[in-house]
């Protein structure tokens, strides 16, 4: 089984600890992971802001970077949703514009092989207990693209519940958007902030010391608000919790 890590651009540049944690979890479970250096960005920010044509070179790059791998695993729900939901659309539109089927071929090839991390762990590896240890009170925010586009459902919670020492507490209004939304966060900063403030209030009401999610872009927004308030809670990607063990605890 040839498995490639799609780290995502945000994790590569800003949250390498999440990508490192993903490697460690997968390796601990006996998976040989590769990181094809030709990868950069899935093109989600460009596409969702209305620049479909500017996204196409990145779609082709994704296809080249991950050619030949059985599975492509990314610690980001929204980047996987970009591949799964929007790559076929990009292909269809290019075809309709008389530019051939090269991009639909990319989508056909990548979509069935691309997995979000918790999906890969639960569905492909068939594991919920990854041998992690993390003695903290944790609440889980299911980011919208993972929740609604990928239908991750209970997978992240099942993984967290199996972590030794971890107390999982329900987040009120969990399924409501945190307000990040990519460029929405700056184009509609007031509404984005109002949504984020409600998310932070709900999260702090749980008394958890960690707000966990599967999408660092959302966590950058929520975590940025938590830090601005000097709140006694930090935002943390689920991969980093799953990577934490008694021998090698996350600090």
């Amino acid at each position, binding site marked *: 089984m040839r498995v490639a890590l799609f780290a995502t651009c945000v994790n590569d540049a800003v949250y390498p600890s999440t990508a490192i944690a993903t490697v460690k979890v997968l390796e601990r479970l006996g998976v040989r992971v590769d990181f094809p250096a030709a990868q950069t960005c899935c093109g989600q920010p460009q596409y969702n*802001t209305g*620049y479909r044509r500017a996204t196409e070179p990145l779609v082709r*790059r994704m296809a080249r970077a991950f050619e030949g791998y059985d599975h492509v695993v990314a610690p980001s729900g929204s980047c996987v949703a970009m591949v799964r939901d929007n790559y076929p659309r990009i292909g269809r539109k290019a075809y309709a514009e008389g530019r051939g089927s090269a991009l639909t071929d990319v989508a056909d090839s990548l979509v069935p092989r691309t997995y979000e991390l918790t999906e890969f762990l639960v569905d492909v590896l068939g594991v919920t207990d990854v041998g992690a240890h993390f003695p903290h009170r944790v609440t889980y925010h299911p980011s919208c693209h993972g929740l*609604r586009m990928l239908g991750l459902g209970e997978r992240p919670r099942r993984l967290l519940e199996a972590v030794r020492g971890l107390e999982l507490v329900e987040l009120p209004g969990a399924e409501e958007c945190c307000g990040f939304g990519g460029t929405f966060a700056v184009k509609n*900063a*007031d*509404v984005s902030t109002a949504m984020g403030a409600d998310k932070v209030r709900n999260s702090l009401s749980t008394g958890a010391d960690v707000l966990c999610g599967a999408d660092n872009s959302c966590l950058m927004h929520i975590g*940025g608000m938590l830090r601005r308030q000097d709140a006694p809670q930090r935002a943390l990607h689920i991969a980093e919790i799953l990577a934490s063990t008694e021998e090698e605890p996350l600090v």
Partner: protein
Amino acid sequence: MSGTYLGMPAFPKAAHEAVRNDTLRANLRHATHTIRDKRAVAVAELDDWTELREAGKQIKDHTLSRLDHYLVQLEESVTAAGGTVHWAAYADEANRIVADLVKATGEGDTGKREVVKVKSMATQEIGLNEALEAEGIAAYETDLAELIVQLGEDRPSHILVPAIHRNRGEIRDIFRSEMEKWGRAAPEGLTDSPAELAEAARLHLREKFLRAKVGISGANFMVAETGTMVVVESEGNGRMCLTLPETLISVVGIEKIVPTWRDLEVFLQTLPRSSTAERMNPYTSMWTGTTDADGPEAFHLVLIDNGRTDTLADEVGRQALRCIRCSACLNVCPVYERAGGHAYGSVYPGPIGAILTPQLRGTASEIDASLPYASSLCGACYDVCPVAIDIPEVLVHLREKVAEHGGPGHRLEKAAIKAAGWVLDHPGVLAAGERVAAKTRRLHPKKLRGPGASQWTDSRDLPEMPAEPFRDWWKKNRT
């Protein structure tokens, strides 16, 4: 607040005020959460919800794909049943037709011309009340919430609950000060109890129903095979307007057609459950042309296009025409909940408004060009839509159109996207950039200036940059 939407500021500017209005935020939060929770219960009762949703989608898509055929069939059916069909390509034309029809009835030739109205999105869309007023015709809204909006010289902020932004105390104050200017005054000592407010509205409206010679409505559905119009409502005011006047004029968008009577079976289940969370709405009025000694003696149907055929021409955008105006998408939308309906600058607010308005009106104005961006693309709207309109898909599609058009700010954005695209297509350059960012991390300020950056750091800290990018860690540790 004026009754028109012209000259509205762009969505972010309008929302800037709304998110700071604590009363509005509390009113909206309470109302939308109550309706959304009830809707979830009402929908969960049906085992075949998924099938009903798919059926509704397919009926609408089929009808839209043969709209020309069904419109002609509808005209024949309505005419055969004793009605008269009028065609209006634009709002002005529709308003002109209605005004002329009202005058032709002789209504108010000696005094004041008056009409009573059933709540209708189509007549709000074309600005009918204002057009009639300019012709000396007073149009009275008879839906309770529309009455509140009209008396308060306000604008509706929700498709189904137009006065959702008002609380009971505000409504009492409006009734006390405004009712007497329009007709029967509010009772002495009116309180803010719902029963008393409803009774005040009932007394005020009753004299209008009994006096009116002309009623104006929209329609939720039009059945092509029979020429039947359908209005669903909750208060009974619709039934009064549709049956008491001598002349009934219905103004309906051309996309409201269903081919057969049997098709209603689907929508009469999905619409009430999605909108008011009821198994069946309290009043379902159906009428087919005219009937001797029963209801209006004259029936006119004014069919309006007003941007609909342009919308139909767009392969991705046309799904917005499936909309049955249930407003479930408004009630689950986190952006609507914070910004309120007025910020959308249209009679169609919320997620559906953000995709319908820029298609019906185009994206030339500042507000219309900003609407496709008034969403975090969270997808909650798509989940609840009873005709499966993929609103996020259409939003992104419309963003593409706006960006292509190159409105204010988009030239700079386009240049930035192009530059970023080049970097992202050159991993070596990207890695070098990531290294520079990591090496200089101690120098990064907490707050930034400039477009885009300050909008981030005004409310959120920037993440601390790591000591090295992941690709460098990989190179050192795994290769």
